[in-house]
């Protein structure tokens, strides 16, 4: 359980992950409460992406446990984690050229056999309803990022991890993205774990922020507080 009566939807407990010559995650503890928007920030190579890819099941942790909604994820494959409500968007939009946006959204609905109407509704949530028959390779970056969100939504997630969703977007585009994400959080009750280098966008989005550096959590709290933290300043400035 998290603070008070709010339940932690995700708990990362003492997770460690090493790659040859590199300790990417070192005794990482993280608890995200249901309905929260959590920021996960840190310098390049700090372990942010490794952590969410470990939570998602792309990497198997060397030690520790990942608990989602009371279920230990340790032996679950990626697709099984998706089925119980975890989802992830990629930093570089991932799509197959030659297959329409409709087909990309449809793919995620196949596990729960959603009607065609659902695909249209998902597209509407990210303002892609007029582009359903288009090829994703022809989309501008903002629309491609929206497609990433749509793909994630198609799996009916309860916990969404966003990897650098604001990367490459202008300030105005970032503001549009924030509106979409906040709506998903409030109306669809999706808990969000946001990884980003764009701290001004993170600041506008999050309820709480966690800072990771050299594979270790070094600070956690309100964005305004942690940004003044000496360890955080040292991690970013050196």
């Amino acid at each position, binding site marked *: 359980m998290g603070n008070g009566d709010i339940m932690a939807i995700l708990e990362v407990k003492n997770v460690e992950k090493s790659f040859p010559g590199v300790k990417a995650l070192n005794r990482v503890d993280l608890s995200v409460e249901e309905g929260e928007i959590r920021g996960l920030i840190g310098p390049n190579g700090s372990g942010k992406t490794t952590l969410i890819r470990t939570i998602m099941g792309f990497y198997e942790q060397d030690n520790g446990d990942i608990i989602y909604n009371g279920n230990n994820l340790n032996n679950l494959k990626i697709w099984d984690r998706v089925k119980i409500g975890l989802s992830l968007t990629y930093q570089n939009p991932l799509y197959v050229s030659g297959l329409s946006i409709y087909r990309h959204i449809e793919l995620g609905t196949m596990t729960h056999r959603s009607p065609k109407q659902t695909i249209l509704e998902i597209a509407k949530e990210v303002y892609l309803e007029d582009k359903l028959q288009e090829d994703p390779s022809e989309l501008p970056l903002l629309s491609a990022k929206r497609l990433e969100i749509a*793909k994630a939504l198609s799996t009916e997630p309860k916990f969404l991890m966003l990897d650098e969703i604001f990367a490459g977007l202008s300030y105005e585009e970032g503001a549009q993205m924030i509106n979409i994400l906040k709506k998903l959080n409030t109306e669809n009750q999706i808990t969000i774990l946001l990884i980003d280098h764009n701290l001004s966008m993170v600041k506008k989005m999050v309820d709480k922020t966690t800072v990771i550096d050299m594979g270790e959590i070094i600070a956690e709290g309100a964005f305004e507080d942690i940004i003044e933290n000496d360890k955080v300043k040292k991690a970013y400035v050196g």
Partner: protein
Amino acid sequence: MIKEGYKWIIIFVVFSIPTIFFENRLYMFILASFFAIFAMSWSFFTSFSGYLNLGHVIFIGLAGYTTAIFNYHLDFPIFPSIIIGVIVGSGVGWLYLYPLHRKISGLSFEMVTFLSILVLSDLVLTSYLRPITGGDLGISPIDTLLSSYPLAIGLTAFMCITGYLFVIFLKSDYGKVLDFARENRDLVKTAGLDPHKYSGLCLLFSGIVGAIGGALYIHFSGSAGVKNTFNLGLMIHIIILAIIGGRFSMFGSLIGAYMVVFLEEILRGFVSGPIENIIIYSLGFLVYFFSPEGLLPRIVSLKNILPLNKDSVADNRRY
């Protein structure tokens, strides 16, 4: 689905009619049907799952040797032998290749399947297995499917039913998932789907059809040996047929098989075996170099039926 059915009925009629008028070439039509079945079943898995399977002849060979063993050594009648051959060929072949494709992909999968053929081709020649496999001489004589009109029509029908079922599969949700899986498996995984479940099913169907073709082919050949089973040359031949016709469509693979089998027959009257091989391999090389999608899409595009530039139109996939 119904439209696709009509299309394959027309293909059946078109490919059956010549057998009536060219009865002296019945053998060629039957051979072409066998190779069309092999090319389609290879192409079905390789072209649509994203795994280059160089071990498709494992299905053909296991089914072929099994039916021959049951027919020759155990005196089983021809059709029960064929059924056992198909079950063993597709079952054992799948049990061997399915875990491999879950664990490895790309060049590793290609090399392992390639080496598997080499191992099997020598294994059946070893002295330990010679009493069963017949060594260099193979298993002969076995009950033979004679070159006959019913065989030609039956095989053409099987070829068309297979083509139809493959296309229906590729147009189903399974095929839709494979469209993504062969390009990017992570994308499928994060959509909540196990990509190997879909490619594994594709491999199973590919293997069943390959095994049926293999078991029948052995009885048409009259013997089971390395040359017509676990043979690298046979594997390459199957690949070339699919490449020439167009491996991204079932009909393309079928057309490729007919074209090459009849071209070989024509060449046989003029050139020696090695020259014939050089011509066929060179043809495969040229087609792959200038038109990697094969001749069928190229020919059809000339009539503006199928645009070659697929990227301009999303979901423009033909099977």
